[in-house]
């Protein structure tokens, strides 16, 4: 486009510069953070995957593809599938419990809404590990549940206990995005649906649920991702009797001193999560 009048051509450039400067100033810390703490470590992980392990950890710079072929070992596949299963069960349960909870909170009067939301976030004020330990106090052989019921049930150190621990830890991450999605819904849409003769269930199925799908996806991702990579809960509440990918990775780096294979496992974990993120963003766009 031609500039009208004789305005010097530098003016718009200058103007843009003036707008860019503050933008850069605000972005730099975040960009630096991502660069230094995300991209560089990621590049290191990628690099480690093709070398041999060093005797004292670290790597020996000899090229090998062995680390990748080891991944095909049924032992590690089982662990990955197991972790997927545990994370999936946790996510579904979180959704089943989280959706009604979020729905209810959204329909509360304003004052109670705040109280309910604070109550949801409250557990985060206590250290994660301490909360996991609370479950041991509750569920152990001589623990509170058994002594109240007068039973000797074996409740702890099972895969089910791992799911319970993960569900408890990450449920708020499901409730909050769901609440945000439901809260944003225009109540008039539901009224319109009712006016047109839809039952409450049909309204939910045809109006509320489709409009909150992005919230469902976000919440599910928020629960699935940390559950899938978790290694503390299986150790504490699983009694070390079940292994998840997170445990494997930590073990390869810190105990077995096999950084290259640990890096391959990390890459596998990231790959699974990237696929899930892609599905989520695809589904959110279509919703």
């Amino acid at each position: 486009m031609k500039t009208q009048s004789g305005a010097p051509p530098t003016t718009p450039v200058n103007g843009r510069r003036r707008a860019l400067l503050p933008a850069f100033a605000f972005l730099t810390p975040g960009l630096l953070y991502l660069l230094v703490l995300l991209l560089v470590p990621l590049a290191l992980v990628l690099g480690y995957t093709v070398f041999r392990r060093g005797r004292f950890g670290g790597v020996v710079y000899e090229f090998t593809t062995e680390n990748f072929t080891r991944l095909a070992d049924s032992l590690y596949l089982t662990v990955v599938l197991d972790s997927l299963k545990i994370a999936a069960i946790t996510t579904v349960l979180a959704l089943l419990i989280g959706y009604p909870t979020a729905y209810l909170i959204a329909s509360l009067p304003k004052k109670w809404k705040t109280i309910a939301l604070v109550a949801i976030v409250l557990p985060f004020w206590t250290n994660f590990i301490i909360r996991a330990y609370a479950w041991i106090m509750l569920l152990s052989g001589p623990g509170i549940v058994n002594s109240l019921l007068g039973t000797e049930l074996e409740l702890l150190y099972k895969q089910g206990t791992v799911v319970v621990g993960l569900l408890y830890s990450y449920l708020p991450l499901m409730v909050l995005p769901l609440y945000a999605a439901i809260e944003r819904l225009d109540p008039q849409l539901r009224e319109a649906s009712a006016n047109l003769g839809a039952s409450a269930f049909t309204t939910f199925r045809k109006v509320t649920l489709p409009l909150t799908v992005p919230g469902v996806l976000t919440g599910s991702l928020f629960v699935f991702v940390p559950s899938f990579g978790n290694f503390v809960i299986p150790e504490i509440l699983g009694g070390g009797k079940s292994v998840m990918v997170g445990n494997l990775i930590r073990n390869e780096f810190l105990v077995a001193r096999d950084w290259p294979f640990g890096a391959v496992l990390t890459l596998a974990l990231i790959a699974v999560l990237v696929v899930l993120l892609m599905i989520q963003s695809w589904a959110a766009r279509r919703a």
Partner: protein
Amino acid sequence: MFRTRFTSRLPVTVAVTGLALAASACGGGSSGTGTDSAAAPSASAAQLNANADLSKQKLTVTVWPGYTPEELPAKAKEELKIQDIQIKLHDTNEIAITKLTTGGEDFDVAFVSGQYAQALNEQGLLEPIHAELIPNLSNLYPEATQLSYDKGNKYSVPYTWGTTGICYRSDLVKAVPKSWNDLLKPPSWAQKKVTMMTTERWLALPALKALGYSVNTDKDDEIAKAKELLMAAKPQLLGFDDTTFGDKLKSGEAIMVEAWDGWCPTTEKNIEFVVPQEGSDLWVDTMVIMKSSKNKEAAHALINYILSPEIHGWAAENINYKVPNKAAMDKVKVAEGSLLGIKPAELLQGESIRDLGEASQKYTRLSTEIKAAQ
């Protein structure tokens, strides 16, 4: 070993932060399997000057948290006239050797477990110990010079030692455990009330010993037999636990656990420790001097100072580990029920865990297989 040493002392939170990060160890390597302390390429050691001016030397030491007295650097500086002593901390052996081998910082003295000292020496990274600069070596028990990974203390000086056994509730067991099989095939009254360690080499230890094998075996058929035994044991276990087994015993959640002696809370009522009849290991935490150190005279002087009965006795009294120092142990008051009374000769019956190099991967795999089994 492991040694986030604070576990027995600080509350559970700290212990578990340790659990998250730390745990344990033993393992890996890329060079030959269990050879005798092979290369000591440093035999042509630097000539050290017994009269060197220590006030021109600075020391950097890496050690487990809480493993030496807090005032050690200040006291040693004054006593030995060393210019400066910096104490750095490591949570596990793995972190220590990563720090020592990947550089960045120059360390003079490091505290690591025996098998790691052995591995470091095989890589030619350790300075031989110049015994003439450490007269206090004579305080050590004679047994402490016969440690299989380093006979004659050629490149390492033992700091603490101990063994692994069964820690149990004498009021809750129906029979006193005496064999590793009591853990592996628990009688009906102990089902689901038994824990074993989760760190690979100690996970394998009860099975290997019960079968009469060496804890350092790299034979596939022996490891396979041990795996069978452990697989069969898993359903009867309460869990695998390296860090909180003492708490599980105290609460009564568990009644028999595989435990390191220093971690078995025998000062509590009704808690006892036994070394099973099939035998066990002998673990040693040692002090080593790095070959790259430019302050070797001061490093020797510091180790000599630590071997004095006062400083070394501190370890026995405060971290509850036996120290291989006769002069120190003679001065230590042994509380009732304390395990400090185990005699060096008994300890020496144990087999030292050695670094297996490449073969250590077999143990990594074994422990993953056991833990991943449904």
